[in-house]
């Protein structure tokens, strides 16, 4: 194998790994490419030189070698994640609302009401935020998880209990909601009426 080919194979591996790779790992992964660690070390050094003047560099960190954005440019890169305060998608909000109002509920049941599938990412992000959690499993094939809201969910929305969520029948439009919330804030609990308008 040509020297140049060894170099680009190591390069490709480092870029694709998604985590630092140690000399040992590289040597183990490429027994047919590199003979020994000293050869590997030489290749890595050469790669480092090759990336001089680039926006990224090859550095050695605790657990091995990785490519990372050069410090002077990380400021630009940071924009990738600070675009604007992120917002939940409609799918996420609807999923959360259904879990709040129809708990305990399975993903399949949410999908049935929504009429579309609920992606794993939505569930995961709500779980990571600790707004929902699994409280059991429905005894049907596949034993799907049953989701419910958490105390953190109540805390975030400043609710003492789920009963404080406004009943759906009272939601006429956004103005109503706003008014209701205002009242809620001003006058404290109790006042919510049972006057169901069916």
């Amino acid at each position, binding site marked *: 194998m040509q020297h140049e080919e060894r170099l680009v194979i190591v390069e490709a591996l480092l*870029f*694709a790994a*998604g985590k630092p790779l140690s000399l040992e790992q590289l040597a183990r992964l490429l027994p047919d490419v590199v003979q020994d660690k000293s050869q590997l070390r030489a290749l890595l050094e050469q790669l480092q030189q090759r990336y001089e003047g680039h926006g*990224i560099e090859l550095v050695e960190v605790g657990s091995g070698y990785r*490519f*990372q*954005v050069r*410090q002077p440019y*990380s400021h630009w*890169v*940071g924009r*990738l*994640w*600070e675009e604007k*305060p*992120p*917002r*939940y998608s*409609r799918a996420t*909000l*609807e999923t*959360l*609302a*259904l879990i*709040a*109002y*129809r*708990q*305990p509920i399975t993903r399949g049941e949410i999908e049935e009401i*929504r*009429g579309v599938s609920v992606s794993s990412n939505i569930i995961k992000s709500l779980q990571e*935020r600790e707004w929902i*959690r699994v*409280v*059991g*499993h*429905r*005894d049907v094939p596949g034993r799907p998880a*049953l989701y*419910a*809201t958490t105390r953190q969910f109540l805390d*975030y*929305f400043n609710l003492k*209990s*789920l*009963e404080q*969520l*406004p*009943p*759906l*029948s009272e*939601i006429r439009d*956004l103005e109503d*909601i*706003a008014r209701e*919330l205002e009242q809620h804030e001003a006058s404290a609990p109790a006042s*919510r009426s*049972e006057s*169901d308008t*069916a």
Partner: protein
Amino acid sequence: MHDEHTPDLEPIAKIRGEEITHLPRDLYIPPQALEVFLETFEGPLDLLLYLIKKQNIDILDIPIAEITRQYMEYVELMKELQLELAAEYLVMAAMLAEIKSRMLLPRPVEEDDEHDPRAELIRRLQEYERYKQAAEDLEALPQVGRDIFPAEAVAIQREQARRQPEVSLAELLTALKQVMQRAEMYTHHQIRKDALSVRARMSEIMSRIDSSGYRRFTELFPRHEGRQGVVVTFLALLELVKASLVELVQAEPYGPIHVKAV
């Protein structure tokens, strides 16, 4: 491997105690592999294509009688092996039988071949074959994780920049309203305040029995909640039992009742 002279009388397999003494004429594979083989068909069109391909016949020139016979042998076999036979296989069997019978009828001279009873079948076979091929082509394309590996570099300040979305209660309610309206449940299945408290209690009960699998029935009724609380808890338990989410178990008469996660 294509042995025309397999003796018909020697039992090949036992199915439901019955000896199977012959397989479809064209099918000579070990019985244990048979089931796997039959399950690989993606449906009647796929099976038909297989039968046609196997004999090197042009789709446009299907010998209907022969293909129908072979098809039926496979369908019978699937039935015998108790494979879950999709209704589509039977629909196709009926279609084949109909084509066969129509082809036996003398055709009026003036009728042109557009009315060849096979035309529709041929069209469907071709159409299906086309996408069967497209699926294979798709599978052969380079795929991320198999042939394509994105190259990444770490940006150190990534984590600190990540912020959680803000949500207001109003947004949540709007979302609920929208989804319920869409589901046309808004008027029929109103979520009322009392239903909600029962639902909330259902969650609570579920989470209390989930860790151990069991919970004493009486422990689920907090004393400080009074009558109202007992009613809500009891309704919640009934709902849970109805939805087969929990079982009420009592080891002996008058013994303690336990709520068990199913």
